[in-house]
């Protein structure tokens, strides 16, 4: 707000000669426009051209005929998508895996952040944070590689330990239901530490006087967490929850592909991996573009709805 008024003051004398032509501004700020040329060109070529390319969802795209030459078929591709068993499987898996991620994974960073906040020893907290953040910095390939080293039948460490203790082996990554939960828990493991950052920041922002007065009122540690910490970060929790809900249609190719294997194909195929195998590998370009468009549009609608809700709640939170 403050900066805006300063700028207005300095700019006003220049622009006081009523309306200027566009060329005047180009001449005055040509260096700024010159800088903008590079990113704008990149965005147009590499982001907006593909958006225009979505048109082939309504065409029978043939590489030789090109984008313009290919035959217009209307919604035929979509009809085909929605009668395709593989598509439904990918859609079902995407929603199942994301839903479980949210249900089981969402509370974890909150709990962990509250626990980290309770640690008084600074060095202990720092060391643990450093270790907890680590998985976030590693690629899905590495995580999957490590996961297979641990959970493989026969040679995986966890199965070796189970066997040595006299239990049966568990097919963590080679049986459908087990795989789903392994997928979800590996995801939680990967992101729980990193997810605490935002909550820890919100907790840091709490007025310490609130805790002091709670102590005077006789609140114990649990009481303070329950009546001060959690209510204070509730708006952050809500916003993060809404953002995550908006992403429920998204799918990570790398996570599903690297953790998946042929045995669990039935549950590990998500939209991104389906589009890859049916589109790039089997070259059904129009069909899979239709799938992508469907995913993008539903995803966009969800994001817009969640943005709208979070703004509503954000306003309330401020009042």
């Amino acid at each position, binding site marked *: 707000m403050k900066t805006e008024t300063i*700028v207005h003051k300095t700019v006003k004398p220049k622009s006081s000669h009523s309306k200027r032509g566009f060329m005047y501004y180009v001449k005055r700020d040509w260096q700024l426009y010159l800088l903008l040329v590079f990113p704008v060109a990149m965005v147009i070529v590499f982001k907006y051209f593909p958006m225009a390319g979505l048109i082939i969802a309504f065409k029978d795209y043939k590489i030789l005929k090109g984008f313009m030459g290919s035959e217009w078929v209307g919604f035929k591709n979509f009809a085909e998508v929605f009668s395709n068993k593989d598509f439904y499987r990918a859609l079902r898996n995407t929603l199942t895996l994301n839903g479980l991620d949210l249900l089981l994974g969402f509370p974890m960073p909150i709990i962990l952040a509250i626990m980290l906040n309770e640690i008084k020893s600074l060095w202990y907290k720092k060391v643990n944070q450093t270790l907890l953040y680590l998985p976030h910095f590693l690629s899905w390939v590495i995580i999957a590689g490590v996961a297979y080293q641990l959970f493989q039948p026969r040679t995986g460490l966890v199965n070796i330990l189970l066997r040595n203790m006299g239990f049966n082996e568990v097919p963590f990554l080679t049986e459908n239901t087990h795989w789903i939960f392994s997928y979800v828990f590996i995801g939680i493991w990967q992101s729980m530490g990193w997810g605490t950052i935002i909550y820890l920041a919100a907790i840091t922002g709490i007025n310490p006087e609130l805790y002091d007065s709670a102590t005077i009122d006789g609140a114990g540690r649990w009481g303070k967490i329950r009546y001060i910490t959690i209510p204070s970060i509730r708006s952050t929790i809500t916003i993060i929850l809404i953002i995550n809900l908006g992403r429920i249609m998204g799918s990570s190719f790398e996570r599903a592909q690297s953790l998946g294997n042929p045995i669990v194909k039935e549950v590990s195929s998500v939209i991104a991996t389906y589009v890859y195998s049916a589109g790039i590998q089997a070259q059904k370009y129009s069909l899979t573009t239709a799938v992508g468009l469907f995913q993008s549009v539903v995803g966009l609608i969800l994001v817009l709805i969640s943005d709208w809700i979070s703004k509503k709640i954000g306003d309330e939170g401020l009042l």
Partner: protein
Amino acid sequence: MDRTNKKRYSSYTKTQIIDLVADIFIYFTVGLLALLCVLPFVHVLAKSLSSDAKVTSQLVYLIPKDFNLKAYRSVIGDPSMILSLWQTVKVTVIFTALGMFLTICAAYPLTRKRLKGRNIISVLFIITLYFSGGIIPDYLLMHRLGLLNKTASLILPLAFSAYNMIIMRTSIQTTVPDSLEESALLDGASDIRILVQIVLPLCKPILATLCLFYAVGRWNAYQDSVFYITRQPLYLLQHKLNLLIQTTNTTLTASEAQPDTVTNPEVVKSACIIFATLPIVIVYPFVQKYFVKGVMIGAVKG
């Protein structure tokens, strides 16, 4: 008087005990979770440094048995592995440099309130955060531009990140006082000179953060390599590793020829995993705090 004192004293110890139990529980749980984040890597590291025989007889847990570097020798001795590493380093460096250039070019002008069309251009960038053509249109564009199986396909499409641009813009707005730029402007400095001589030096911390965002992001991503690259020497390291892990018969070309090499695929896989993890783990302690900072700026905006 005496009694109340006693009561207070005893209740104090009671809460103290509860506190202590809670402390132990919390310290223990957090410590355990943190250990769970590193122990898997320690295990894989131990495996990679052990002999075939010990790994095959499943005796390796967290400490290497029959310490040796054979597996690493066969990883490094594999030319395709080294080519992939070189390709990844090359792509990461160019990608980061280009990404930073584009981010600065976009962010700085958008902080100038007098700039006409500022909002339209902002929207043009921000839309890309929420909507995209998707996998197939991206792929067909690469095909059209003749970039399939070209290193450029791993650099150009992702080089501009609207998310990083927003972080940069927010950070310029908060760290560089407008008055400073106004006075430079009055002294006759051009916009680009102000950017290079005043704004960028003041924004060093965020520049470091964004460099790391780009570099680590590029180092770890391999989706585009899977989509666009089908020729061996151009595979990114993560892509190569992925193929290696997915196939059960891990045959590193070099290891086949020599007799004194590792035959247990588990050991070779472990070595490959550590090989690809090492660069990140080495820089990680130094870069972690910058990442946290970057996330905070990004979150404040969102």
